[in-house]
């Protein structure tokens, strides 16, 4: 169905251009039928792209290997869900995925945005349609997923074994959802600027969207970490790879926005800054795509090099210039309503929080681009790896962690010294106690000490906030403690949901700190041989090699090495690590090896430390096996942190508290009176 898909793409392009041209022209002012047409175009765009997507999926499912994309990323014996996810496994398919998700978000935005923002919506439609049209253009002119070949191979090349993992089925879409949904807040920002309705209205309209993109980005990034941890086999989850950095950049600027937007809502300050952050986040999400797809910077994530990069670079520059020019022309309208009153206030803490978020974003961007800069200036190729990024960013990250504990303790507008003392006493004492405890237990790693002590400080802050809030509420409303706690959170969902997210960040930092204490060793073992390893927590693990077995499973031959593990002399079970040799079956009974054998790590999760066992290979094709044993402290808290983060974000986003009851009835009463007086 490539012809249908192809023509659907062309139709989608025309529909998108119509919405963009009419929407931007502003001719729909005073002509509601034209505005309706623009909105309808957004829905039509989504529908037409669905047709294109179905065409591609159909090709994947029926194994139409004449389609270049299908032949490149699937094979006959690929398990079904990987055929489904092969849709976004390659460059071309993921472009289509991007376009269809964006058009879906755009349609949802048109559909769900309350009628009071009517005056913004055609502009919003124009922006989303322009971006969608850009992706369709790239597909049609540079990376067509429907391109056919001159011959039909008997079987496809199959999916890279490392992508044959459940993490890869959900990590890219999640990250894409985050990247793509940033377009909606961006579209509202541009619409607000174009329509000159730059009051707080557009901020309210995008609040849920910004939180949602941020949540998707957070989940997507964490899933990427999880995938790297379980699949890549080096026992870590973050390598400061350019593409990882690129996903972190919009996350950082969005995090900054989520904080600074509160100042605008409460005080009417930072309007220009918030506009810039939204525009910047969108540009960074495009920049991330550019990095991934251009091959400009060497990265393990890169798709194959292609001309697609130039399209993205051009779009990035054009979008940046146009957006910031527009912002400049509306500069005067974005006058702040009020001024900062004291340097010791929540507002000031937020300002410095923003400085750090954006500063870290700059620092990561700087590091990512530094090899290019260096080559341009000195003509020498250099590489920047984890040691570089850690040296530059760990101190900044710790400062940010500290602010997480400081900010909530300071009142809005201003705080007095006496109050500050009362607020900080508990948390600071907690932090110092943690520090003393760690020093006493013999820890001497400076950054680890700082990180954990700060984590203690932040934990103190959070506990105090919840405890004092609950007590205050119980006192003020004469409620029992559990009810007061429940209502406290329910009536201040944004604040206490935000605190949960802070707790999640705290867990992430603790987990990151654990990385400094990993222990590992390699060993060659014959069945029955044992190796021992001592962990940072002082446990002694004994690994006994039990043997190697081989069997067939799905589309692969599995070589499984089993290790029996004892902790402090007590058996805790068997851990298996595998080599997987994938094969393809171009014809029934015919088998061809595809790809080199991949390694599956054996992991035993534990709240303290993970066992991470890699079967490196066999000696001379016997059961004598080479292993790498790694003890990874605290890794599991990254994943727990992510769950806490999701809960916190959901609490924050939970709908409710709408105008009802007293307010609505108040207006109703007013109208009754009016009818009575005969007006």
């Amino acid at each position: 169905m490539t012809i249908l898909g192809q023509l659907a793409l062309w139709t989608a392009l025309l529909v998108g251009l119509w919405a963009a041209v009419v929407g931007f022209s502003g001719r729909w002012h005073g002509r509601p039928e034209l505005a309706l047409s623009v909105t309808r175009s957004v829905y039509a765009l989504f529908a037409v792209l669905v047709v294109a997507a179905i065409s591609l999926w159909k090709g994947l499912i029926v194994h139409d290997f004449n389609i270049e994309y299908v032949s490149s990323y699937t094979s006959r014996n690929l398990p079904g869900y990987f055929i489904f996810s092969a849709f976004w496994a390659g460059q071309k398919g993921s472009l289509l995925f991007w376009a269809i998700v964006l058009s879906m978000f755009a349609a949802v935005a048109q559909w769900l945005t309350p009628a009071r923002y009517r005056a913004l919506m055609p502009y919003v439609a124009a922006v989303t349609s322009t971006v969608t049209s850009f992706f369709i253009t790239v597909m049609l002119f540079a990376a067509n997923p429907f391109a056919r070949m001159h011959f039909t191979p008997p079987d496809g090349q199959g999916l890279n074994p490392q992508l044959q993992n459940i993490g890869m089925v959900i990590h890219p879409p999640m990250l894409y959802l985050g990247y793509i949904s940033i377009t909606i807040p961006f579209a509202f920002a541009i619409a607000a600027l174009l329509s000159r309705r730059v009051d707080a209205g557009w901020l309210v309209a995008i609040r849920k969207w910004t939180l949602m993109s941020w949540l998707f980005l957070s989940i997507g990034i964490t899933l990427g970490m999880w995938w790297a941890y379980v699949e890549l086999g080096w026992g870590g989850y973050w390598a400061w790879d350019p593409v990882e950095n690129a996903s972190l950049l919009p996350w950082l600027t969005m995090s900054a926005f989520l904080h600074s937007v509160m100042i605008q809502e409460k005080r009417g300050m930072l309007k220009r800054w918030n506009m810039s952050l939204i525009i910047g986040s969108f540009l960074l999400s495009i920049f991330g795509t550019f990095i991934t797809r251009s091959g400009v910077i060497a990265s393990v994530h890169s798709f194959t090099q292609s001309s697609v990069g130039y399209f993205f670079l051009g779009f990035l520059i054009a979008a940046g210039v146009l957006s910031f020019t527009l912002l400049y022309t509306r500069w005067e309208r974005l006058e702040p309503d009020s001024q900062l009153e004291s340097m010791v206030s929540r507002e000031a803490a937020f300002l410095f929080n923003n400085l750090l978020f954006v500063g870290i974003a700059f620092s990561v961007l700087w590091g990512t681009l530094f090899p290019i800069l260096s080559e341009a200036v000195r003509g020498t190729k250099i590489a920047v790896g984890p040691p570089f990024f850690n040296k530059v960013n760990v101190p900044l990250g710790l400062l940010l962690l500290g602010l997480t504990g400081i900010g909530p303790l300071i009142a809005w507008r201003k705080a007095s010294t006496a109050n500050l003392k009362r607020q900080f006493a508990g948390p600071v004492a907690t932090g110092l106690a943690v520090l003393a405890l760690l020093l006493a237990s013999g820890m001497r790693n400076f950054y680890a000490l700082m990180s954990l002590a700060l984590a203690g400080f932040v934990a103190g802050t959070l506990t105090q906030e919840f405890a004092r809030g609950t007590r205050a509420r119980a006192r003020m409303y004469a409620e029992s403690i559990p009810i007061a706690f429940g209502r406290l959170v329910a009536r201040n969902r944004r604040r206490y949901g935000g605190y949960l997210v802070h707790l999640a960040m705290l867990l992430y930092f603790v987990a990151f700190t654990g990385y400094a204490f990993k222990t590992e060793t390699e060993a060659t073992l014959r069945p029955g041989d044992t190796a021992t390893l001592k962990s940072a927590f002082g446990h002694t693990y004994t690994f006994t090699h039990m043997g190697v077995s081989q069997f067939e499973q799905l589309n692969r031959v599995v070589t499984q090495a089993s290790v029996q593990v004892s902790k402090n002399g007590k058996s805790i079970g068997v851990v298996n690590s595998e080599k997987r040799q994938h094969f393809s079956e171009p014809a029934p009974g015919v088998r061809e090896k595809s790809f080199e054998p991949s390694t599956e790590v054996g992991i035993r999760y534990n709240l303290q430390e993970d066992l991470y066992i890699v079967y490196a290979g066999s000696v001379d094709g016997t059961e004598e096996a080479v292993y790498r044993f790694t003890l990874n402290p605290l890794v599991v808290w990254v994943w727990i942190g992510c769950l806490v983060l999701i809960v916190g974000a959901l609490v924050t986003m939970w709908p409710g508290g709408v105008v009802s009851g007293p307010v609505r009835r108040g207006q109703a009463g007013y109208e009754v009176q009016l009818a009575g007086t005969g007006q």
Partner: protein
Amino acid sequence: MNLFEIIAAVLVALAAVTVIIAPLTRPGQSAPSGADDPEEVDDTPKGIALAALREIEFDRATGKLSDEDYSQLKTRYTTAALAVLRTESGAEPARPDTTGSSDRLAAGDVVEAMIADRVRRLEHSGIRCPACGPRPESDALFCSGCGRSLTVGGCASCGTPLVPGSRFCEGCGTAVAR
């Protein structure tokens, strides 16, 4: 097979064009309306003012605000909240009747529906004060609640209808003469 696909594609394109063009054949059709969900309390001027007041109560109770700062802010926010309440409606809000019999409740629902209908029509009539919401006086030049100008007319430069309270025309950016 190819022919079938081409036909299908043409049909898809035709359907898309029909959906998009259809509104243009009926000029004056009402603008697209999104979901009509009510505004969240915290985003109304009253909500913001009350939330500010509640926040300082809380900040004092949890020990973040000193008594001196509290009383200063309390005066400020109270003034602000009262101003919002004054502009919101001239009259006291009717108290919801929670003790009525089922008959009275049913009658109340009918009244509620009539009121909601009236509010909706008022909202669509375009007489709306930026500060006080929909106004009952369909021919008012100024808001009876706060005295703002409610002039609805065309922009002197391009003719685009002006939203009450706007300082610039949303069509061309010309400053609105007052």
